[in-house]
């Protein structure tokens, strides 16, 4: 089992979610996060004082997948991020154990 993590700009989230659903993904975990990056730094002004904001509101997707789907799903996600003109990053990691608590399924059955 693998974990795909992607930090994306909010506007492409909908398209990625729809595409993953199309590929048979039934669920995922989503967080609202901030990316710190030079490219997206901007200024906010309150009562005449300038504030630099280099934290970009972003969405983080965590997705548990069987090993043989890792490549396809990673490709889908990064492709949509690219065509959406978006930045962000995708990474994957090895997962040892998953338990689906409601059904007590373990491992691949729990995905």
């Amino acid at each position: 089992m693998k974990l795909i993590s992607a930090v994306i700009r909010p506007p492409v989230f909908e398209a990625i979610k729809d595409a993953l659903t199309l590929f048979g993904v039934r669920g995922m975990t989503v967080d609202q996060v901030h990316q710190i990056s030079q490219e997206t730094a901007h200024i906010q002004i309150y009562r005449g004082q300038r504030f630099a904001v280099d934290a970009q509101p972003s969405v983080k997707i965590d997705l548990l997948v069987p090993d043989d789907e890792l490549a396809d799903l990673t490709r889908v996600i990064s492709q949509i991020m690219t065509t959406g003109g978006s930045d962000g990053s995708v990474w994957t990691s090895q997962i040892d154990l998953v338990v689906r608590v409601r059904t007590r399924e373990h491992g691949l059955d729990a995905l």
Partner: protein
Amino acid sequence: MIPYPNWVDAGDTAWQLAAATLVGLMSLPGIAVLYGGIVQKKWAVNTMLMAFTGFSLVLLVWVLWGFNMGFGDPLHLGPGILGNFVGVPHTLLGDNTQAQANIPLLNGGMPDFHFSQSALAYFQFVFAAITPLLFLGSVIGRINFKVWLIFVPLWSTLAYSVNAFLLWGGGWWAQAPRGALDYSGGYVIHLAAGTTGFVAAAVIGPRLARDRARAVPNNLPMAAVGAGILWLGWNGFNGGDPYFAGADAATAVINTNLATATALLTWLLLDMFLSPQRKPTFLGSINGMISGLVAITPAAGFVNGLGALLIGLIASALVWLSWNKLARTRLFSRVDDTLGVVHTHGVAGLAGGLLVGLLADPHIVEYLNKDGSTGFSATGLFYGNPMQLAVQAGAALTVIVWDALITFLILKFLSLFMNLRMPDEDLEIGDVAAHEEEAYPDDTLVHASQPSPAIAPPTGAHRVELATDAEPGAG
């Protein structure tokens, strides 16, 4: 010395200034926080700033030329309606404002005013000011801020002044034998705002599809504050319009509240028993409340309590149908009226204006003769005057056609040399792109003055092609 001339009545003056302030509070902060709370989080600042700037712009227009275009001497543009269409523009900046208030064409048609021209001008200003703030609700989420700053003064001059003159300044629709009724602005303000908002939304174009698909509010308690200020502020809106702190002012106030409570509950019950989700909703009941406030506005001091109750009931049901059914029709779903102003103000204002043609009760007296007999009251169809309904329909049509035309022409003109919409990339971001401010900034993620020093970008040696075009698993 004496504090004021004999024609001043301290009570009437005090009530007029208090009523005007109540109406002003409906705009600031009322509309600002109601709309600011209902829109998406990313548009709250833009919405509130448009409300505050709209209010300011109208005041300048009003004292420089607008008030006299609405309430001054008639400008003779031609025969018939053209001779009594709009007033002669001139300023209020001189010392003439301490004189007794005066609407030239109404001299003799109503009692002499008991307050100064300043009190009249400020009272009428707050009505002129709230109207653009109402149709702001139709264009939120894409209108170019600079377009707003130009559109509001032009519209106030060319559309609002005409509405006000025709119905309140003694213009053509107010004159005998027509005598169109609009107690506090069902047509002049609300039908005008609904029409203008709808046409402006159509000309400017829709929000981003993504924004339309997820237009959730950002702060319902703030919307509750705004909505509550609107309701109670309406005591000044309708209670101030007899211009005297007398019995008809009190009638208008209680009628306003009665119609509003009825309308709120009507919408709530329709939501509970006829809507697809069968749930009572807060924002639904607020829509019902506004429908009632708007619909009683043209009628407040002309109908009796039963009339007010019926107006609240009928108008709320009509606007509910309009909101839930008419909005699904092709025309209405194609135009992106952000907050549905065409329903809650346009349809409600029209419904109220027509209902006063049915329900105006001649025993509800606005002004008395010196012997105590009825000096001025209105009579609707149910009390034997069928003509009133036809007159109400004619006045409504005039406001709809004129305001739609003026809105269309101003925006088409502005589109010749500026973009009516913000750029799409700014629409994605919202407030921060337009104003470098946001409604709920996060104090952990910002730091003063400059961004942190730049880090050298990656050289490329370590770049990884992560499965975009590379083979599965590459990298």
